[in-house]
Protein backbone atom coordinates (compact mmCIF):
# COMPACT_ATOMS: atom_id res chain seq x y z
CA UNK A 1 0.00 0.00 0.00
CA UNK A 2 1.28 3.43 -0.89
CA UNK A 3 1.83 5.89 1.93
CA UNK A 4 -0.31 8.99 2.04
CA UNK A 5 0.07 11.99 4.33
CA UNK A 6 -3.04 10.81 6.13
CA UNK A 7 -1.55 7.37 6.66
CA UNK A 8 1.69 8.90 8.02
CA UNK A 9 -0.34 10.90 10.55
CA UNK A 10 -2.37 7.82 11.48
CA UNK A 11 0.80 5.78 11.97
CA UNK A 12 2.22 8.50 14.22
CA UNK A 13 -0.92 8.60 16.35
CA UNK A 14 -0.84 4.81 16.54
CA UNK A 15 2.73 4.93 17.85
CA UNK A 16 1.67 7.44 20.50
CA UNK A 17 -1.14 5.04 21.48
CA UNK A 18 1.37 2.18 21.62
CA UNK A 19 3.54 4.19 24.00
CA UNK A 20 0.55 5.04 26.19
CA UNK A 21 -0.66 1.44 26.04
CA UNK A 22 2.67 0.27 27.38
CA UNK A 23 2.74 2.96 30.01
CA UNK A 24 -0.71 3.06 31.48
CA UNK A 25 -1.25 0.12 33.75
CA UNK A 26 -4.72 -0.69 34.95
CA UNK A 27 -4.88 -2.20 38.42
CA UNK A 28 -6.72 -5.37 37.49
CA UNK A 29 -6.26 -7.77 40.37
CA UNK A 30 -4.11 -9.78 40.83
CA UNK A 31 -1.68 -8.31 38.28
CA UNK A 32 -1.92 -4.85 36.76
CA UNK A 33 -2.45 -5.18 33.03
CA UNK A 34 -1.19 -3.00 30.23
CA UNK A 35 -2.63 -2.72 26.78
CA UNK A 36 0.71 -2.88 25.06
CA UNK A 37 0.22 -6.20 23.25
CA UNK A 38 -3.43 -5.43 22.56
CA UNK A 39 -2.48 -2.17 20.81
CA UNK A 40 0.38 -3.88 18.98
CA UNK A 41 -2.01 -6.45 17.52
CA UNK A 42 -4.58 -3.78 16.75
CA UNK A 43 -2.02 -1.90 14.63
CA UNK A 44 -1.89 -4.38 11.69
CA UNK A 45 -5.63 -5.04 11.97
CA UNK A 46 -6.32 -1.33 11.46
CA UNK A 47 -3.45 -0.24 9.24
CA UNK A 48 -2.70 -3.38 7.22
CA UNK A 49 0.70 -3.81 5.67
CA UNK A 50 1.87 -0.31 6.66
CA UNK A 51 1.66 -1.34 10.33
CA UNK A 52 5.30 -2.39 10.42
CA UNK A 53 6.29 1.29 10.08
CA UNK A 54 4.51 2.08 13.34
CA UNK A 55 6.06 -0.86 15.19
CA UNK A 56 9.50 -0.11 13.75
CA UNK A 57 9.21 3.55 14.79
CA UNK A 58 8.13 2.42 18.26
CA UNK A 59 11.06 0.02 18.63
CA UNK A 60 13.52 2.63 17.30
CA UNK A 61 12.24 5.21 19.81
CA UNK A 62 12.99 2.66 22.50
CA UNK A 63 16.33 1.81 20.98
CA UNK A 64 17.59 5.39 21.02
CA UNK A 65 16.66 5.61 24.70
CA UNK A 66 13.12 6.96 24.98
CA UNK A 67 11.35 5.20 27.85
CA UNK A 68 8.60 3.76 25.68
CA UNK A 69 8.55 0.11 26.73
CA UNK A 70 6.56 -1.34 29.62
CA UNK A 71 7.98 -0.18 32.92
CA UNK A 72 9.87 2.68 31.27
CA UNK A 73 12.65 0.47 30.01
CA UNK A 74 14.55 1.52 26.92
CA UNK A 75 17.62 1.08 24.85
CA UNK A 76 19.42 -2.08 23.90
CA UNK A 77 18.92 -3.27 27.47
CA UNK A 78 15.20 -3.68 26.84
CA UNK A 79 15.78 -5.34 23.48
CA UNK A 80 18.46 -7.68 24.75
CA UNK A 81 16.91 -8.29 28.17
CA UNK A 82 14.78 -11.34 29.02
CA UNK A 83 11.62 -9.90 27.45
CA UNK A 84 13.32 -8.56 24.31
CA UNK A 85 12.08 -11.50 22.25
CA UNK A 86 8.51 -10.33 22.74
CA UNK A 87 9.46 -6.95 21.25
CA UNK A 88 10.87 -8.71 18.18
CA UNK A 89 7.65 -10.73 18.11
CA UNK A 90 5.77 -7.42 17.83
CA UNK A 91 7.58 -6.60 14.59
CA UNK A 92 6.97 -10.11 13.26
CA UNK A 93 3.27 -9.73 14.08
CA UNK A 94 3.04 -6.39 12.30
CA UNK A 95 4.64 -7.83 9.16
CA UNK A 96 2.73 -11.13 9.01
CA UNK A 97 -0.68 -10.04 10.31
CA UNK A 98 -0.46 -6.80 8.33
CA UNK A 99 0.08 -8.78 5.13
CA UNK A 100 -2.73 -11.21 5.97
CA UNK A 101 -5.11 -8.39 6.92
CA UNK A 102 -4.56 -6.81 3.50
CA UNK A 103 -5.04 -10.02 1.53
CA UNK A 104 -7.67 -11.96 3.49
CA UNK A 105 -10.74 -9.89 2.76
CA UNK A 106 -13.50 -11.30 4.92
CA UNK A 107 -15.28 -8.58 6.84
CA UNK A 108 -16.13 -10.52 9.97
CA UNK A 109 -15.43 -10.54 13.66
CA UNK A 110 -14.24 -14.12 13.26
CA UNK A 111 -11.47 -13.11 10.87
CA UNK A 112 -10.23 -10.46 13.31
CA UNK A 113 -10.41 -12.95 16.16
CA UNK A 114 -8.44 -15.54 14.19
CA UNK A 115 -5.77 -12.99 13.23
CA UNK A 116 -5.56 -11.58 16.77
CA UNK A 117 -5.23 -14.95 18.47
CA UNK A 118 -2.81 -16.08 15.76
CA UNK A 119 -0.62 -13.08 16.45
CA UNK A 120 -0.16 -14.31 20.02
CA UNK A 121 1.70 -17.28 18.53
CA UNK A 122 3.96 -14.89 16.60
CA UNK A 123 4.63 -12.86 19.76
CA UNK A 124 5.11 -15.75 22.17
CA UNK A 125 7.39 -18.01 20.12
CA UNK A 126 10.31 -15.55 19.79
CA UNK A 127 9.48 -14.21 23.26
CA UNK A 128 9.75 -17.55 25.03
CA UNK A 129 12.74 -18.73 22.99
CA UNK A 130 14.69 -15.56 23.83
CA UNK A 131 13.61 -15.67 27.48
CA UNK A 132 15.01 -19.18 27.82
CA UNK A 133 18.18 -18.18 26.00
CA UNK A 134 18.90 -15.10 28.12
CA UNK A 135 18.08 -16.64 31.49
CA UNK A 136 19.94 -19.81 30.47
CA UNK A 137 16.89 -21.91 31.26
CA UNK A 138 17.06 -25.63 30.64
CA UNK A 139 14.81 -28.64 31.21
CA UNK A 140 12.74 -28.26 34.36
CA UNK A 141 13.42 -24.54 34.80
CA UNK A 142 11.99 -23.94 31.31
CA UNK A 143 8.86 -25.82 32.31
CA UNK A 144 8.58 -23.70 35.46
CA UNK A 145 8.92 -20.51 33.43
CA UNK A 146 6.23 -21.69 31.00
CA UNK A 147 3.85 -22.44 33.88
CA UNK A 148 4.58 -18.96 35.21
CA UNK A 149 3.63 -17.49 31.82
CA UNK A 150 0.35 -19.44 31.59
CA UNK A 151 -1.86 -16.93 33.48
CA UNK A 152 -0.44 -14.06 31.41
CA UNK A 153 -1.18 -16.03 28.24
CA UNK A 154 -4.74 -16.67 29.44
CA UNK A 155 -5.20 -12.94 30.03
CA UNK A 156 -3.74 -12.21 26.59
CA UNK A 157 -6.20 -14.59 24.93
CA UNK A 158 -8.98 -12.62 26.62
CA UNK A 159 -7.43 -9.30 25.55
CA UNK A 160 -7.31 -10.48 21.94
CA UNK A 161 -11.08 -11.03 22.00
CA UNK A 162 -11.43 -7.36 23.01
CA UNK A 163 -9.03 -6.41 20.20
CA UNK A 164 -11.13 -8.34 17.67
CA UNK A 165 -14.26 -6.59 18.94
CA UNK A 166 -12.58 -3.19 18.51
CA UNK A 167 -11.03 -3.79 15.10
CA UNK A 168 -14.12 -3.68 12.88
CA UNK A 169 -15.78 -0.50 14.21
CA UNK A 170 -12.42 1.28 14.31
CA UNK A 171 -11.60 0.34 10.72
CA UNK A 172 -14.87 2.00 9.72
CA UNK A 173 -13.83 5.18 11.55
CA UNK A 174 -10.48 5.10 9.76
CA UNK A 175 -12.10 4.64 6.37
CA UNK A 176 -14.52 7.58 6.83
CA UNK A 177 -12.17 10.45 7.68
Amino acid at each position, binding site marked *: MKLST*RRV*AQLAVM*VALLIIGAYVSIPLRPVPITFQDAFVVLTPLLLGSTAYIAILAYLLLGLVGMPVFTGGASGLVALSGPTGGFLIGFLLTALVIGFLADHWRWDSWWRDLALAEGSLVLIYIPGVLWLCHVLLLQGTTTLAALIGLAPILALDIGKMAVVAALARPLRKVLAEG
Partner: protein
Amino acid sequence: MALSNSFVLGQHYPGTSLVHRSGALVKLISTIVLMIGIFVATRTIEYIPIAVLLAIGIITSRIPLGFFVRGLRPILLLIVLTVAVQLFFTPGRVVWQLWFIHVTREGLGLAGFIMCRLVLLTLVSVLLTASTSPIELTDAVSDLLKPLSHIGVPSAEIALVMSIAMRFVPTILEETERIIRAQVSRGARIGEGSIVARMKSFIPILIPLFVSSFRRADDLAVAMEARGFRVGSPRTRYHERHFRSSDVLILGGTALAISGVIVWRLFL
Protein backbone atom coordinates in the same frame (compact mmCIF):
# COMPACT_ATOMS: atom_id res chain seq x y z
CA MET B 1 -7.79 4.39 37.84
CA ALA B 2 -4.12 4.76 38.38
CA LEU B 3 -2.96 6.44 35.22
CA SER B 4 0.74 6.67 35.64
CA ASN B 5 1.52 10.15 34.52
CA SER B 6 5.20 9.56 34.76
CA PHE B 7 5.80 9.87 31.05
CA VAL B 8 7.95 12.93 31.36
CA LEU B 9 9.96 13.87 28.36
CA GLY B 10 12.69 14.86 30.75
CA GLN B 11 15.07 12.58 28.91
CA HIS B 12 16.88 15.56 27.48
CA TYR B 13 19.11 17.74 29.62
CA PRO B 14 19.88 20.85 27.55
CA GLY B 15 23.39 22.18 27.71
CA THR B 16 26.27 23.63 25.78
CA SER B 17 29.03 21.17 26.64
CA LEU B 18 31.24 19.46 24.12
CA VAL B 19 29.06 16.37 24.22
CA HIS B 20 25.93 18.45 23.62
CA ARG B 21 27.45 20.34 20.71
CA SER B 22 28.63 17.35 18.74
CA GLY B 23 26.40 15.94 16.01
CA ALA B 24 23.50 13.63 16.84
CA LEU B 25 24.47 11.20 14.08
CA VAL B 26 28.03 10.99 15.40
CA LYS B 27 26.74 10.36 18.92
CA LEU B 28 24.24 7.78 17.71
CA ILE B 29 26.86 5.88 15.74
CA SER B 30 29.34 5.91 18.60
CA THR B 31 26.59 4.77 21.02
CA ILE B 32 25.77 1.83 18.75
CA VAL B 33 29.45 0.96 18.35
CA LEU B 34 29.95 1.09 22.12
CA MET B 35 26.89 -1.10 22.67
CA ILE B 36 28.26 -3.68 20.24
CA GLY B 37 31.58 -3.45 22.10
CA ILE B 38 29.75 -4.11 25.38
CA PHE B 39 28.21 -7.23 23.86
CA VAL B 40 31.47 -8.42 22.32
CA ALA B 41 33.43 -8.30 25.59
CA THR B 42 33.54 -11.60 27.45
CA ARG B 43 35.21 -10.63 30.72
CA THR B 44 34.44 -7.87 33.20
CA ILE B 45 37.94 -6.44 32.88
CA GLU B 46 37.44 -5.80 29.15
CA TYR B 47 34.85 -3.18 30.04
CA ILE B 48 37.52 -0.84 31.40
CA PRO B 49 38.19 1.12 28.14
CA ILE B 50 34.44 1.65 27.60
CA ALA B 51 33.86 2.60 31.23
CA VAL B 52 36.70 5.13 31.08
CA LEU B 53 35.36 6.71 27.88
CA LEU B 54 31.85 6.79 29.36
CA ALA B 55 33.13 8.43 32.55
CA ILE B 56 34.93 11.10 30.50
CA GLY B 57 31.76 11.65 28.48
CA ILE B 58 29.59 11.96 31.60
CA ILE B 59 31.99 14.40 33.27
CA THR B 60 32.47 16.62 30.21
CA SER B 61 28.71 16.67 29.52
CA ARG B 62 28.19 18.51 32.85
CA ILE B 63 24.90 16.67 33.31
CA PRO B 64 24.21 16.08 37.02
CA LEU B 65 24.99 12.53 38.17
CA GLY B 66 21.48 12.17 39.60
CA PHE B 67 20.21 12.16 36.03
CA PHE B 68 22.16 8.99 35.30
CA VAL B 69 21.15 7.35 38.57
CA ARG B 70 17.51 8.01 37.68
CA GLY B 71 18.11 6.45 34.27
CA LEU B 72 19.19 3.23 35.97
CA ARG B 73 15.96 2.91 37.96
CA PRO B 74 13.83 1.20 35.26
CA ILE B 75 16.34 -1.63 34.92
CA LEU B 76 16.81 -2.16 38.65
CA LEU B 77 14.41 -5.12 38.72
CA LEU B 78 16.03 -6.57 35.61
CA ILE B 79 19.46 -6.33 37.24
CA VAL B 80 18.28 -7.93 40.49
CA LEU B 81 16.54 -10.75 38.59
CA THR B 82 19.40 -11.60 36.25
CA VAL B 83 22.01 -11.31 38.97
CA ALA B 84 19.94 -13.60 41.23
CA VAL B 85 19.55 -16.21 38.49
CA GLN B 86 23.29 -16.18 37.75
CA LEU B 87 24.24 -16.11 41.41
CA PHE B 88 22.16 -19.07 42.52
CA PHE B 89 22.04 -21.31 39.47
CA THR B 90 25.60 -21.26 38.16
CA PRO B 91 27.37 -24.53 38.96
CA GLY B 92 30.94 -24.43 40.23
CA ARG B 93 32.97 -24.14 43.41
CA VAL B 94 30.66 -23.35 46.32
CA VAL B 95 31.79 -20.40 48.42
CA TRP B 96 28.66 -19.85 50.49
CA GLN B 97 25.75 -22.12 51.23
CA LEU B 98 22.44 -21.78 53.08
CA TRP B 99 20.05 -24.74 53.01
CA PHE B 100 19.41 -25.26 49.29
CA ILE B 101 20.98 -22.01 48.09
CA HIS B 102 24.50 -22.24 46.75
CA VAL B 103 26.62 -19.31 45.75
CA THR B 104 29.56 -20.32 43.62
CA ARG B 105 32.72 -18.48 42.68
CA GLU B 106 31.73 -18.79 39.01
CA GLY B 107 28.26 -17.49 39.83
CA LEU B 108 29.69 -14.42 41.55
CA GLY B 109 31.88 -13.69 38.52
CA LEU B 110 29.02 -14.09 36.05
CA ALA B 111 26.66 -11.98 38.16
CA GLY B 112 29.19 -9.17 38.40
CA PHE B 113 29.83 -9.36 34.66
CA ILE B 114 26.14 -9.19 33.75
CA MET B 115 25.55 -6.33 36.15
CA CYS B 116 28.39 -4.32 34.58
CA ARG B 117 27.00 -5.10 31.13
CA LEU B 118 23.48 -3.88 31.98
CA VAL B 119 24.67 -0.76 33.81
CA LEU B 120 27.06 0.24 30.99
CA LEU B 121 24.43 -0.40 28.29
CA THR B 122 21.97 1.82 30.14
CA LEU B 123 24.40 4.61 30.93
CA VAL B 124 25.54 4.80 27.29
CA SER B 125 21.99 5.30 26.09
CA VAL B 126 21.17 7.72 28.93
CA LEU B 127 24.15 9.87 27.92
CA LEU B 128 22.93 9.87 24.31
CA THR B 129 19.34 10.89 25.09
CA ALA B 130 20.34 13.34 27.81
CA SER B 131 22.72 15.25 25.57
CA THR B 132 20.65 15.16 22.37
CA SER B 133 17.24 16.68 21.74
CA PRO B 134 14.53 14.30 20.49
CA ILE B 135 14.32 16.14 17.15
CA GLU B 136 18.06 15.84 16.51
CA LEU B 137 17.89 12.19 17.52
CA THR B 138 15.09 11.26 15.13
CA ASP B 139 16.86 13.13 12.33
CA ALA B 140 19.95 11.06 13.09
CA VAL B 141 17.91 7.85 13.01
CA SER B 142 16.52 8.87 9.64
CA ASP B 143 20.05 9.50 8.33
CA LEU B 144 21.13 6.12 9.63
CA LEU B 145 18.17 4.35 7.98
CA LYS B 146 18.66 6.10 4.65
CA PRO B 147 20.43 3.14 3.00
CA LEU B 148 17.34 1.04 3.75
CA SER B 149 15.22 3.26 1.51
CA HIS B 150 16.77 1.43 -1.46
CA ILE B 151 14.88 -1.70 -0.45
CA GLY B 152 11.64 0.20 0.02
CA VAL B 153 11.76 1.10 3.72
CA PRO B 154 10.51 4.71 3.98
CA SER B 155 13.26 5.95 6.31
CA ALA B 156 12.30 9.64 6.26
CA GLU B 157 8.67 8.80 7.05
CA ILE B 158 9.72 6.51 9.92
CA ALA B 159 11.67 9.38 11.48
CA LEU B 160 8.72 11.69 10.97
CA VAL B 161 6.37 9.17 12.58
CA MET B 162 8.76 8.97 15.54
CA SER B 163 8.87 12.70 16.16
CA ILE B 164 5.13 13.25 15.70
CA ALA B 165 4.42 10.34 18.06
CA MET B 166 6.56 11.84 20.83
CA ARG B 167 4.70 15.11 20.39
CA PHE B 168 1.32 13.38 20.68
CA VAL B 169 1.95 11.28 23.78
CA PRO B 170 1.10 13.97 26.38
CA THR B 171 -1.94 15.13 24.37
CA ILE B 172 -3.42 11.66 24.02
CA LEU B 173 -2.62 10.80 27.64
CA GLU B 174 -4.66 13.82 28.71
CA GLU B 175 -7.45 12.74 26.39
CA THR B 176 -7.41 9.23 27.91
CA GLU B 177 -7.91 10.62 31.39
CA ARG B 178 -10.76 12.83 30.18
CA ILE B 179 -12.53 9.91 28.50
CA ILE B 180 -12.20 7.72 31.59
CA ARG B 181 -13.65 10.46 33.80
CA ALA B 182 -16.47 11.09 31.32
CA GLN B 183 -17.41 7.41 31.13
CA VAL B 184 -17.23 6.95 34.89
CA SER B 185 -19.50 9.96 35.37
CA ARG B 186 -21.97 8.27 33.02
CA GLY B 187 -21.96 5.23 35.27
CA ALA B 188 -19.41 3.03 33.56
CA ARG B 189 -17.93 0.47 35.94
CA ILE B 190 -14.34 -0.01 34.99
CA GLY B 191 -12.35 -2.91 36.33
CA GLU B 192 -15.21 -4.40 38.32
CA GLY B 193 -16.96 -7.75 38.22
CA SER B 194 -15.77 -10.95 36.62
CA ILE B 195 -12.68 -11.08 34.42
CA VAL B 196 -14.85 -11.05 31.29
CA ALA B 197 -16.87 -8.08 32.56
CA ARG B 198 -13.67 -6.20 33.38
CA MET B 199 -12.25 -6.87 29.93
CA LYS B 200 -15.47 -5.67 28.32
CA SER B 201 -15.50 -2.56 30.50
CA PHE B 202 -12.48 -1.21 28.64
CA ILE B 203 -14.28 -1.12 25.29
CA PRO B 204 -16.21 2.12 26.14
CA ILE B 205 -12.86 3.76 26.86
CA LEU B 206 -10.84 2.40 23.97
CA ILE B 207 -13.38 3.17 21.21
CA PRO B 208 -13.65 6.92 21.95
CA LEU B 209 -9.90 7.07 22.58
CA PHE B 210 -9.09 5.67 19.15
CA VAL B 211 -11.80 7.66 17.41
CA SER B 212 -10.60 10.96 18.86
CA SER B 213 -6.96 10.07 18.24
CA PHE B 214 -7.56 9.27 14.58
CA ARG B 215 -9.57 12.44 14.21
CA ARG B 216 -6.50 14.28 15.46
CA ALA B 217 -4.45 12.42 12.86
CA ASP B 218 -6.79 13.63 10.12
CA ASP B 219 -6.49 17.24 11.27
CA LEU B 220 -2.74 16.85 11.36
CA ALA B 221 -2.64 15.40 7.84
CA VAL B 222 -4.63 18.35 6.50
CA ALA B 223 -2.32 20.78 8.28
CA MET B 224 0.76 19.00 6.93
CA GLU B 225 -0.47 19.01 3.34
CA ALA B 226 -1.49 22.67 3.64
CA ARG B 227 2.15 23.40 4.51
CA GLY B 228 3.38 21.55 1.46
CA PHE B 229 4.25 18.14 2.89
CA ARG B 230 4.24 15.33 0.33
CA VAL B 231 5.18 11.75 1.07
CA GLY B 232 8.42 10.79 -0.64
CA SER B 233 9.45 14.26 -1.74
CA PRO B 234 12.81 15.39 -0.41
CA ARG B 235 12.79 17.58 2.69
CA THR B 236 15.21 20.22 3.82
CA ARG B 237 16.20 20.91 7.40
CA TYR B 238 15.93 24.11 9.34
CA HIS B 239 19.26 23.56 11.07
CA GLU B 240 21.95 22.35 8.71
CA ARG B 241 24.81 20.74 10.56
CA HIS B 242 28.41 20.45 9.55
CA PHE B 243 31.17 18.26 10.83
CA ARG B 244 32.91 19.84 13.82
CA SER B 245 36.01 19.21 15.86
CA SER B 246 33.89 17.83 18.74
CA ASP B 247 32.60 15.15 16.35
CA VAL B 248 36.16 14.09 15.60
CA LEU B 249 36.89 13.88 19.34
CA ILE B 250 33.87 11.65 19.98
CA LEU B 251 34.57 9.36 17.04
CA GLY B 252 38.24 9.19 18.00
CA GLY B 253 37.42 8.34 21.62
CA THR B 254 35.00 5.64 20.52
CA ALA B 255 37.53 4.12 18.12
CA LEU B 256 40.14 4.14 20.88
CA ALA B 257 37.82 2.47 23.41
CA ILE B 258 36.71 -0.18 20.95
CA SER B 259 40.24 -1.02 19.87
CA GLY B 260 41.04 -1.23 23.58
CA VAL B 261 38.33 -3.84 24.06
CA ILE B 262 39.42 -5.81 20.99
CA VAL B 263 43.12 -5.76 21.94
CA TRP B 264 42.26 -6.78 25.51
CA ARG B 265 40.03 -9.59 24.28
CA LEU B 266 42.53 -10.99 21.77
CA PHE B 267 45.91 -10.49 23.43
CA LEU B 268 45.55 -10.13 27.20
